[in-house]
């Protein structure tokens, strides 16, 4: 199994977090830390690119739940992209697609954030 890792890249004003490996109770705090960092820098447009995510436990799912309200409250969102069918099943069973948007590709997810970011910033 591959090591857990997070790589953050910027696509315009959208932060893309590429999470790989196992996201469980041991690794979730690291994702949480990176998300906190981004949010504290007012980067609230987040795309989770999970193509290389092999496994997610309830602790991993909990991280997304914990920050979605704050992110949306500040005019941003958490979107998901490129999930493998197996990982998608986990999100799906739990009902995440009702609360979050899922996209087959990161580019599409990035595009779905409204472009008028100045207006959004103003609201935040």
């Amino acid at each position, binding site marked *: *199994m591959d090591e857990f*890792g*997070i*790589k*953050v890249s910027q696509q315009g004003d959208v932060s893309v977090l590429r999470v790989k490996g196992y996201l469980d*109770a041991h690794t979730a705090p*690291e994702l949480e830390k*990176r998300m906190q960092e981004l949010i504290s820098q007012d980067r609230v447009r987040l795309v989770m690119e999970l193509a290389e995510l*092999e*496994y997610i*436990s*309830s*602790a991993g*799912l*909990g*991280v997304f*739940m*914990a920050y979605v*309200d704050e992110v949306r409250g500040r005019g941003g969102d958490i979107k998901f992209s490129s999930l493998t069918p197996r990982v998608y099943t986990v999100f799906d*069973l*739990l*009902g995440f697609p*009702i*609360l979050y948007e899922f996209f087959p590709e990161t580019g599409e997810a990035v595009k779905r954030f409204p472009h008028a970011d100045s207006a959004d910033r103003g609201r935040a």
Partner: protein
Amino acid sequence: MQDRPSWTRAIALGGAGFLFVLVLLIDVARKNVAPTFLQSNFVVDVLSIGALFLLFPLLQNVVTERREDPLRLLLTLVIAAGIVFVIVLVCVFLFPSEQFQTVSGWLVPHSYNAVFLSLIIGTVTSVAALFVFLSLYGLLIGTGKRGTRILANVLVVLLIVDALSRVGGAPATGSFFQSAFFIVAIVITVLLSFRLPWLIELRRKEKLVALGYELMLVAFLGGLAGLLGGETFPARSIAYFSAPLGTFTYQLVVLGCVYFSAAFAGTLFHLPTSDIYERRVAQISSLRDFGNISTQILDKDQLAQTVLKLAREMGGARGAWLELPGAVVEGHGQAGWERLSENGALDAGSGLPFDELRAEALASSSVTLRGGNLRGEPKGLRRFMPKLAAVQNSFLAVPLRVHNETRGMLYLAKPAGESFDRHDIATVTALADSAAMALENSRLLREMIEKERLERELLLAQSMQTRLLPRELPRLPGIDLFATSIPATEVGGDYYDIVHNAHGNLSIVVGDVSGKGITAAFYMAVVKGVFQAVGQNARSPREFLVNANEALRGSLDSHSFVTMVHAIINPSDRTMSFARAGHCPIARVRDSRVELLVPRGMGLGLASDDVFSDSLEEVTVPCVPGDTYVFFTDGVTELRRPGGEEFGIRRMEELLRGTSYSSAEATASAVLQSLRQFAPEGGYIDDMTVLVLRFVGCGEVSTAIEKIGD
């Protein structure tokens, strides 16, 4: 030595007193005849030496007791020499030297008074001389080297031989220097006076006190040498008392004066170096103290503060900083450094060249930088020249290493103009080594304690969890039920329960609480409470789950959620209704076909009641005898074998399809057995729960049992 029995002391004193009395009697008897009458000169000398010999162990005791404390010994000497000096001085004024007459080389006392006084003066001075002798010897031998010992012993032999050679001889007032022995003795004393082993260990203040004592000793002994060397009453008294002892006394007074004069000069000479010596001693004892206390300090910050304070004191520095590797930052690769300064230190160290010094120190062992001047410093530092040239302070940077691994950095700074010497570097490096070890120890200990705490918490959570599960399941005719749960070693929170509700229906729940340890166990207790309270009255799974969502959203933290399947079996209309709140699919086995039922529904605690309620789908199925429903938790399908492969839903389907089992228990056992075969090592990271429900009838008294049984 003080515990020497008092009777031996009494015997020694008594014996010596007796011998002195004998001497007195002989002196009285021969007063009016020749001093050599009946060889009495020999007898008197032997008796007086014998008396002194008896007193020897007593005086030796006094010296031995004080040898560890040179100042105390010196003080005793000062007091003794002072008393003797005063006695001798008084006698010089009170009695004329004519009390003794020289008759053909021998002294003849003028009166019985003179005989008596000579005995007293002779005894007191020779005892004092012996004491000076033993003290000098003790001081030199105490911590002296081999050469010192040999010289001191030669001196002893010389003095004894010189004294013994005079036994029975005529008194030699004023002619002491004629002895070749004595000249050699003086030379040896001068040589010995360069050796002051007892002086080195004294602190500065003590040396000042020693200077005072030495000055007094030189004065008293010098005075005595003058008084006893001339033609005075006391000088003649001791010569008359005993020729060998008189010589011995005079020689010791002179030698003592010589030695303490030299010692006075030596003490003056050593005074300026005593600060350095004291600092070295303090450094060594600090290191030892640190070694002792460091194992008792667990707290990292407290340990760091101790190291900082000691390092600053030991290096004689103005400021000290400690750097410990911080958390590893993903992507950056290199660990950052957390810098700690001593509490209350004025300078936080901003603007100081930590990065440059660290880079250099990590490449070698320790690095020193003398303010602004890089000459003689490690060459590597030159590349930082532009920045370092501006630095005025002196720096010492030492890495903290354990088994060649760097665990931190220690920096010391001195004001411009001061620098760190070789010895400072060596001591601070030694401290850095112990500090690295102590930090490592405290880290390991903290880890161990944390691990133990977690283990205890897990055990507590597990026993709580076990007690929350039903001990036995209610029975309903026509329904075959079996449930089992395997607790995990790490993450837990599976819950199942079955109750008869208020409407005469059977209410079944299988749930999974997110989180682990105590938190999971706590949420499980909440879920049980909700189920026991709401489950009693709920008419439908939808009603129950919507209520449960409402109740749990208030008590779960933002990271946590609960997934659940709830089912109600209604015997009156022979149906079962169920709904799924974010939980695993439900497997239905019918005629060796397996169907995964996944009605829509979100986990509990994720969304508001409206969203939750809108998403929830409830399914109602008829009770068909022979149908088996398997409820399970994700611990089952997500069970991993060491290679990383998951048990998975497909394997579960296959397993259930393979055979038609005769009972719910047999089905559950088959699942468990398959799980154990899949991952035989145990140590499951998540709870695994399997609840099997098999319809024989549908809760009413059932002829179906017999039907199926056939």
